[in-house]
């Protein structure tokens, strides 16, 4: 049986998502069974880029409006500067042929990396499965994560 690697993606920052997908793809490339558990702000990474995010109640509507998410909307954790820093970083990455978070996510999925969305955070934020990309394999909670992490040789929190 393949060795397991698990990643908790708590952050919704673009730079941290890049690091997470990089590690996941690396893990898959050495034959590990990799799962990524997206929780809290990390859910933004696996939200659909298009269409509205539906939720009920004024506070949740406000939250989901300000916290729209989607792989192409992620901001930098540093020097974001209302998008200018992100634009510059994107340009530098393009110049060096570095894949975007979206491209890395597709690559990770194709390499067999499993995506798990945290239902607790989804409940708090009032968003359903329709807010997410179809690549999400599982919707679960802490026990789902721990079942993988217990046998994990590498478990990381990002």
């Amino acid at each position, binding site marked *: 049986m393949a060795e397991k690697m698990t990643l908790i993606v708590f952050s919704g920052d673009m730079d941290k998502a890049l690091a997470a997908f*990089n590690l996941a*793809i*690396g893990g*898959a*490339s*050495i*034959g590990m069974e990799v799962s990524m558990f997206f929780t809290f702000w990390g859910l933004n990474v696996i939200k659909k880029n298009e269409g509205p995010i539906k939720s009920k109640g004024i506070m949740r509507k406000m939250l989901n409006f300000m916290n729209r998410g989607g792989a192409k909307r992620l901001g930098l954790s540093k020097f974001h500067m209302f998008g200018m820093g992100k634009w510059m970083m994107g340009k530098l990455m393009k110049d*060096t*042929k*570095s*894949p975007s978070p979206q491209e890395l996510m597709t*690559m990770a999925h194709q*390499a067999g990396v499993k995506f798990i969305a945290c239902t607790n955070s989804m409940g708090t934020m009032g968003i359903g499965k329709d807010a997410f990309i179809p690549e999400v394999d599982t919707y679960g909670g802490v026990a789902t994560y721990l079942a993988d992490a217990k046998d994990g040789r590498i478990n990381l929190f990002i």
Partner: protein
Amino acid sequence: MKADATLDCVGLYCPMPIHQTANKLKELKLGQVLEVLASDEGIKEDAPAWCRTTGNEFLGMEEKGGEIKVYIKKTK
């Protein structure tokens, strides 16, 4: 060194060379040799490390004017 297949990763950065190497090696038969062309310095450490962890054989590398050639024998 003679190789059965070549993979061009020039201009690509981590994790692309390793990711593509892993994919490309799946197409090869046991005992065949893959040549990977790269320009990212990291490949010098990453290729032997990848071979150690996956059980494939690292045959060596050559470097010429910024281009690095890595040779991997599929043994797993």
